[in-house]
């Protein structure tokens, strides 16, 4: 928590500002959203660290994916993630977004979320408690410090691969691609 070290502010204001003003988009993707209200209200108060919930992806730079991701929610998640402005960070809650978790063999849930959108960090726990969410926020700070929180850069550079994977799962997407697509990656038609 090096918020009040003034020299750091003058050396790299963008990094410090991104660290201490994480506006999280309030979009309940899965079962973990029940943990977010206590985090942002009086009991645990995320605003101490500058984390406040905002209504639209346009104003947000942190995207909390709370819990398992069904195929239908994936469409909304991709759309919201693409409408956020760079630099943007994503945090996955629990084991379901990592590898499907207990829904590993379900026909309707997404197994590895980072095949479709890049994730900066994961929190263990079948719905992590608020303290775990704060630990995630502090880890995100260290990632930003070291410049490793570059999920959005990976998304921008490998956009064709992400787009291809998304279209393999969701079929034809009805919004235009975010970044221009070079034709060398042919979308592999799913069987």
């Amino acid at each position, binding site marked *: 928590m090096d918020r009040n070290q003034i020299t750091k502010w003058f050396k790299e204001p963008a990094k410090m500002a991104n660290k201490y003003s994480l506006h999280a988009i309030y979009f309940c993707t899965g079962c973990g959203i029940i943990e977010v209200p206590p985090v942002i209200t009086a009991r645990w108060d995320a605003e101490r660290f500058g984390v406040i919930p905002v209504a639209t992806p346009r104003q947000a730079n942190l995207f909390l994916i709370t819990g398992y991701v069904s195929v239908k929610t994936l469409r909304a998640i991709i759309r919201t993630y693409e409408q956020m402005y760079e630099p943007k960070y994503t945090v996955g809650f629990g084991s379901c977004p990592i590898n499907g978790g207990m829904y590993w063999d*379900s026909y309707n849930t997404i197994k590895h979320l*980072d095949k479709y959108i890049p994730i900066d960090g994961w929190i263990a726990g079948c719905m992590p408690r608020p303290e775990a969410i704060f630990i995630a926020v502090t880890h995100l700070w260290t990632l930003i410090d070291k410049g490793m929180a570059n999920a959005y850069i990976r998304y921008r550079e490998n956009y064709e*691969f992400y787009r291809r994977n998304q279209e393999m799962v969701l079929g034809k997407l009805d919004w235009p691609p975010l970044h221009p697509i070079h034709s060398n990656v042919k979308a592999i038609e799913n*069987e």
Partner: protein
Amino acid sequence: MNESIKEQLESTFKAVVVTIPDGTQIVVSVKKDQVLAVLRFLKDRRFDHLALVSCVDWIEEKEFELVYILTHYTQGGEERTDQERLHLIVKTRISRQSPRLETVTGIFSNAEPYEREIHELFGVIFEGHKRLIPLFLERDYEIPPFRKDFDTRKYVKDVFDKIPFVEDKDK
């Protein structure tokens, strides 16, 4: 009171098997083409609430079993709590190869989403249904997912595991 309904049903419809497992339930199994008639008959006798339509996959007998659960809000004019209500379960069997059945939305309009769901998840085609479009699933499946012969592990291996991880282009 259960007895009277049992006699009425057996008298009006032939080849109707009515059993009363306990005080609050009556199970009526009917033929495929009698379903509409029975439902209308019961609706006139104050069973005006279609609680649920569900489907059971008897894979050995190669049949689907459709279950309509009817109940009533009021008994003799005043409210009845859920326990005291009489649940009337109408069952019918249709073949698994060509699962076709008349829609009941003509009698109970609230059956529309139930029938869409059964169509989507079991593949039962309801003739005369106005909006037989997908309800929940995003993707389309050859074998509807709720059927017993749908192997979910194989499906996951074929669809999701085949999608490659996003390696960086330069690697």
